[in-house]
């Protein structure tokens, strides 16, 4: 199996998992779902770290640096704000 087919397989299976899991999220949690999934889409930070860290040329390092900043804002901001929101949804008894 070529590498492309292998990662395509993973992509397609992830589509099914995504639909299965997300359709069960109730509407009251849709805003935290968005901010939380935003944090997860900050996973590009991995690619950003490799570009910024491999220091191949000045240009790729600079692009990597900017990408690290963007992605870190997404990751840190996303998880923190989601946590803040979800704490408010805890049942008050």
């Amino acid at each position, binding site marked *: 199996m070529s590498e492309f087919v292998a990662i395509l397989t993973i992509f397609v299976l992830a589509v099914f998992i995504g639909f299965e899991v997300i359709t069960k999220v109730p509407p009251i*949690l849709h805003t*935290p779902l968005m901010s*939380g999934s935003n944090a997860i889409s900050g996973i590009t930070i*991995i690619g950003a770290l490799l570009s910024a860290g491999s220091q*191949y040329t000045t240009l790729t390092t600079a692009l990597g640096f*900017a*990408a690290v*900043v963007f992605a870190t804002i997404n990751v840190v*901001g996303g*998880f923190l704000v989601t946590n803040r929101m979800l704490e408010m949804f805890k049942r008050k008894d």
Partner: protein
Amino acid sequence: MSPDLVNIAYLAAASLFVLGLKGLTHPRTAVRGNRLGALGMLIAVVVTLINQQIVGYQVIIAGIVLGGLIGAIWAIKVPMTGMPEFVGLCNGFGGGASVLVAGAAFIESSLRSSGNLEMQFSAATVVSGLIGAVTFSGSLIAFGKLQGMVSEKAVRFPADHVLKALLLLGSIGVGVMVVLDPGDVNNYWYMVAVASVLGILLVIPIGGADMPVVVALLNSYSGLAAAATGFVLSNNVLIIAGTLVGASGFILTSIMCKAMNRSLSNVMFAGVGGEPPSDGPAMDDIYEGKVKSTSADEVAMLLDSARRVVFVPGYGMAVAQAQHAVRDLTNMLEERGIEVEFAIHPVAGRMPGHMNVLLAEADISYDKLKEMDDANTNFEQTDISIVIGANDVVNPLARDSSDTPLSGMPILNVDRSKTVVVIKRSLSPGFAGIPNPLFAADNCLMFFGDGKQAIQDLTTAVKEA
């Protein structure tokens, strides 16, 4: 660390993302779910950092410190009413990061191989750059609209659809050139530039009240851009995480469209919310002599004999920051043995779930927040429905007529409760630009004023009654 170990760690991270999202299926497990997701991210980052491909850490540390500080301060300071802007801008950062990562990887590989790149690699780079750039610029415009820096109206100009089609074809054309001649890296940036203009033009003609759809759609794009970057880097965790986000945004987009009974292409291209429609029922015919204005004291008297009260919040509640005042009134009514619930329309506010977050912020328990279908079964048994800052989502024309911009949109049937009190500044129409016959209904009382002030006056009046 061997490549196998790295990939196993990435697999663990991806599994934690899935489990984390699964946690979001219930408020009780949601906090834990979010932390699992964060743990997954930490694992992925740490494993990447100890990877031997990395030769220097100064740039990385500087980037993480800067981004972390901005993200943390922003996340702590942002008010709950500002969540649509927050998510809107974060989508843009995600798209921007994908553009930059794909661009950097492309340049590096192109130099290393002196322009002999596999077609799959360049094609993935093009997809990542295209979607990322549209997401980035589109999100900035959406943010501007939510902040009021860009007109909330649907901005249209002659031949705008043609221009958008040309830009799309143009960016794809440059993208094909990137694939055919990967030695010339400048083409990638030309493509990004064209796609960025396209992103701006795609969001500019969409009106403010349609922002829930746009923000959800851009959320989906930011995930897809990350997944495309995963194809560039042949990295499974990027593909899985990006795809999960893409699916999430897509599902939210279709839920929002369904809740307005509109197609995605209608939201994206019809320019709803520009100039008010000239046809449709005239305001004077509907309102003349039939609108009854009320006062805090009168409503307090009605509440005195009520057993069941339903609040219907809309974007106006967010604008007036009235959620805390509503909570105080709710507590007072409950102390008097009145059953209180909240009926929430899926598109109320400026993003999916906007109202729920505001009410949760004000300490209102989530089991009082009812979804539309659930709420609609109970309006007949409701003594008083209090509509605060909502308009189109309670307009009976959507249900009863077939020739208005709202026709067919599911609404909250507040007009079926015994009495409806509408708190609103004036009789001005909602986003759809058509009058609301509810305001002239026999069982409807208009309480004119600012949402927060009106609720506070009402609380005082109830206390004194």
